[in-house]
């Protein structure tokens, strides 16, 4: 009988995994809790066309040096854990293929503008705190749970969803904040991540807390410290385009745009 579907064994035998290529990965190592030493450790790891920077790091951890400090979770650009500087540019390790870097040596360093915890893992408290500060939720006096009528929804039109859905894709990876030149100098700047999130809720017509939120960002280390270098948007892996959100928010704050 003719086989319509290949047998499992046929399928497996078609999957040829033979690494003919390898990459040299230079990993910046440091442990500020112990001492101020910083160094690069080099490893050579076999790669395929689809190998990501995170795959390489996990390969190093499994087979060459298990002490490499790296934070990751989802491996699919969803959790925002694996942000780092890859060949000098902030990116997600799990979302960057070695093949697209076009280089035999890949250098990975922790993200700029964050304190290093160890090796590639950084402390993101400041970003998370600023994110919380802009009140990233729909603010209402009334509730979706109503004593008399039970549960109801705050309705909203598809057109309104289009206004903010882009900004709600943020995975809090922090790459934007690490690319931003204002973050490089200003200790207190709220940062592109939080500003884009402020706009996400301001553009949401269910939200009734716009004035409260605007007061938080309309201060000396708030929105006016953005000078539209655009670097946040160059590195955002989710198409949030924080620079767009910030300029739209500024237009709104100035009363020019609605």
């Amino acid at each position, binding site marked *: 009988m003719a086989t319509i579907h290949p047998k499992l064994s046929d399928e497996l035998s078609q999957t040829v995994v033979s690494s003919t290529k390898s990459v040299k990965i230079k990993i910046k190592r440091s442990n500020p809790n112990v001492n101020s030493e910083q160094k690069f450790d080099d490893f050579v790891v076999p790669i395929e066309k689809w190998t990501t920077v995170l795959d390489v790091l996990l390969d190093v951890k499994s087979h060459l040096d298990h002490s490499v400090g790296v934070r990751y979770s989802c491996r699919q650009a969803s959790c925002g854990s694996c942000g780092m500087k890859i060949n000098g540019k902030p990116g997600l390790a799990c979302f960057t293929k070695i093949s697209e870097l076009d280089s035999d040596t890949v250098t990975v360093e922790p993200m700029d503008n964050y304190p290093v915890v160890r090796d590639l893992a950084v402390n993101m408290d400041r970003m998370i705190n600023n994110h919380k500060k802009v009140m990233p939720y729909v603010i209402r006096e009334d509730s979706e749970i109503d004593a008399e009528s039970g549960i109801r929804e705050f309705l909203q039109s598809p057109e309104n969803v289009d206004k903010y859905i882009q900004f709600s894709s943020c995975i809090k990876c922090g790459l934007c904040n690490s690319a931003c030149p204002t973050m490089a100098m200003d200790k*207190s700047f709220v940062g592109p991540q939080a500003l884009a999130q402020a706009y996400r809720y301001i553009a949401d017509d269910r939200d009734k807390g716009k004035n409260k939120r605007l007061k938080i960002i309309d201060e000396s280390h708030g929105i006016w410290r953005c*000078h539209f270098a655009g670097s946040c948007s160059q590195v955002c892996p989710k198409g949030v385009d924080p620079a767009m959100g910030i300029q*739209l928010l500024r237009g709104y704050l100035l009363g020019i745009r609605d």
Partner: protein
Amino acid sequence: MERETGAREGLKGWLHPGKIGKFGIERLAWLLMRLTGLGLLAYFIGHIYETSHILDGKAVWDKSLEMTQTTEGHLFLALVIGMCVFHTGNGIRLMIAQMGYGIGKAERPDYPYKPQSINMKGKACIYATLGMAALAMWYGMAVMFA
């Protein structure tokens, strides 16, 4: 806002030439905007000081004018012309963008997630401004060195 306890890149984050390669022409425009802004401010203060010599009589005034009649003086003035043109042109681009115009429209993001705020219109403006600054410097030098 939350004050940070740890790392900041510092001036290297502003001036390192590698940043422009990684983050594009918009980052160069940002850096030049700062530098020309500060340069013009310094020139403005110097200019007030220089022109205040008019109160000290014709001889002192003529002498102070001579400062810019040298080759270095001409090159310096050409630089001021370039800074003026770039800062003004780029300033107008920034004012428009920072009011929320010319930066695209929010939409459902789709792979490969090209940011709309970093677009050809903006890039063309930056290149045109750089070109105009170069042209103005060239014209200024042609007049001064004639």
